[in-house]
């Protein structure tokens, strides 16, 4: 047990920051628009495949590839949202249609890329690891953690400290009243969708070069985002942070304890989520309200 303490603490902290970045957009979108977008993880996949297409197949520079991939992911995110809003305006139908869209995108990429698995994409960050307190640490996760913290600070400032942030909060609080005050609610939603899509796309561009690209890769970030959102409390933006770390430490512990296990850490993730739904249905962020 002592032998895995250092890697669990270090990797758990780094993965926690990564999970925050992945889950931020999902929670932000739900917090503002009250819709669960199950196609969220698919944008992670879209970004990864687009980077592969531009950088590996077309030989475009990695910086340009990442930029184009992120823009495409934002476009897809907005398109999916508009599609769901237009044809599935109620939350339940939105949920179903967004899931179907995610599956459709999976099969589209599987078709176009012949279902190949194990594709590796180049990244902006070198992957050569270094030793920190006796643990081999990847600069990918260190830099992702730094970007995650930075974006969290920027988002906090944007939402709490700017005029438009006030507009967003008003819309989240009561969209009908906000509309009466002249706020273009639909525009606010689109801006939030774009930001949410950009966050998950940036996460993919940073992380996937240390992993691999395959058709069903959207499931893992979706699971992370969903579980973190549930554990933190759906819509409770800032409680994403402790929820992400709770999940990351639990999963990393399982990974180091059982290094050749298949899907055990995902099983743990779902078990944590189910446990919270049963015991604390409003998540960590709703503890005070539940206690009252």
């Amino acid at each position, binding site marked *: 047990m002592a*032998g895995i303490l250092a*890697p669990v603490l270090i990797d758990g902290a780094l993965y926690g920051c990564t999970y925050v970045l992945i889950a931020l957009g999902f929670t932000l979108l739900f917090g503002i628009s009250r819709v669960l977008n199950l196609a969220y993880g698919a944008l992670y996949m879209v970004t990864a495949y687009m980077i592969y297409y531009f950088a590996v*197949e077309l030989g475009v520079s990695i910086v340009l590839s990442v930029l184009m991939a992120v823009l495409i992911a934002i476009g897809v995110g907005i398109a999916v949202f508009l599609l769901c809003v237009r044809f599935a305006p109620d939350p339940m139908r939105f949920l179903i249609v967004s899931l179907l869209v995610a599956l459709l995108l999976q099969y589209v990429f599987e078709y176009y890329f012949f279902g190949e698995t194990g594709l590796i994409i180049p990244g902006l960050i070198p992957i050569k690891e270094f030793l920190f307190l006796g643990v081999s640490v990847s600069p990918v996760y260190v830099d992702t953690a730094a970007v995650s913290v930075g974006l969290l600070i920027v988002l906090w400032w944007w939402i709490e400290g700017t005029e438009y942030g006030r507009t967003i909060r008003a819309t989240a609080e009561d969209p009908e009243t906000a509309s009466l005050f002249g706020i273009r609610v639909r525009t606010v939603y689109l801006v939030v969708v774009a930001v949410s899509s950009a966050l998950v796309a940036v996460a993919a561009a940073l992380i996937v070069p240390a992993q691999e690209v*395959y058709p069903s890769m959207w499931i893992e970030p979706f699971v992370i985002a969903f579980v973190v959102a549930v554990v933190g409390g759906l819509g409770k933006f800032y409680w994403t942070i402790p929820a992400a770390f709770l999940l990351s430490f639990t999963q990393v512990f399982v990974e180091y304890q059982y290094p050749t296990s298949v899907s*055990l850490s995902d099983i743990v993730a779902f078990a944590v989520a189910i446990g919270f739904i049963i015991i604390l249905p409003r998540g960590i962020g709703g503890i005070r309200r539940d206690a009252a």
Partner: protein
Amino acid sequence: MVILIVAGVGGYFAYKYYTTSSSSNTITVGMPMPLNSLIGQNMLDAAQLAVNQINAAGGVTFNGTSYQYKIVTYDTQEADPSIPIQNGINGVTSLITTNHVNFLVGGYRSDVVLAELPIVAQYKELYITFGADTGISTYVQQNYSVGGKYIFNGFLNTTNQGAQYGTLPIYLLLAYMEGKIPTNITKIAILGEDAAWTKADIGSGGLSCPLAIAFGYAGFQPTYCNVFPLNPSGGSYDSLLSTLAADGTQAIYMLAAGTETPLLISNYGAFDWSTDAATHGAKPLLLGADVMAEFNGNSASTNYYQMTSAGAADEMTFGWGPTLAQSFTSTSLPFYNDFVANYSQNPIFADGFVYSAFYYLASAIEAAKSINANAVIPYLEKTDFTGPMGIITFSSSHGLLVPINPNPAIPAFGMQWHKDGKLYPLWSSLWSSPNYAAVDIPPYGTGAGGTVSFENFETPSGQLIGNFTVVVPKGL
């Protein structure tokens, strides 16, 4: 009424177009292959090369008529070990019942191939397959008269492979003990993909796995033996690599024939091995059967070194030639050169076997003067064909006979990626003197002794040792 007639006529022609297997001058060969992967695409290229050559030379001729080969494919996706075996069953069923092919040549993953055999036997469709499980020959033997006879295993099974693969690590340990290389590989970890063909070596894992026991007899100190996950939790193999480093692993022996290794090798190359006290911080020597490591193309998507972000540096992989421009038989180099000229890509381990299958099938058809499987089988059983990778002959249970004395009929071939990003020939089981049986597989201890030569050896820390010769003591 007119519409019905038109629909009927159109449907008839569509049916004929899509299901015609053998027009009067065509022999249709169905190929169930993992075409969604580089591995399957490469195997199809080898098949197409053979077909083009045979057809250009007049095709398959008997009874005064020339027949042209035609390939019909079905993508089984089986190079990914997580793909269900049902894909293979669907593949052979579709090729037989919808495309009405005359013969089947293909198959890759052993558990998929095994699942296909009852279907093939039921339909009495002649099938030359390339799985590695000894279960294929067992099936033929046990079911010969009820359909098993239609199945031929055109690739070495795990027993045949192990007779040559298993000796390479032992030669390298001897090389260290004789001071020929500075790399101590005594503490060895064994990793295998979770697939049917590795079961004989990995079993249920742990240090009592069959390969660990065999390595123990040979003087190794196994530290780990298990399958590795296809999609690691958290998307990284660092937790597994940390375990290996903590165990003081000096060498990793890997068995992987699927498409999952680029991530593992990428992580292996990126990992900081400073905590591995036994290697003094260097990465362990990586050797074994890694099919993806044979890809030496010109682009990032076909070159393993680039796929793994240079993680493959100093990785050794062994297979069956000619993956590089090496001569094993008189047809090795012509095949290699033709393949590269046609496809701008080197052939991989299975390609020589696939290529050869079309040739010896053609010979059997011509000798039988028929495309009827029952007529062809006796001639196929008498196959004695020299392909680019070695000599093809079949046993009574339709597996390959691979005698290794005095020299292997199908020689194993080892390669190593160097830090310059190039793939070099390292070893061949033909490079033994006075003959191959320089060392027996432990614990028999009846090896005849001799010498084994290596070329282009580079240590995991990038030191180029080059060529050396290992003296194998008699009685090992």
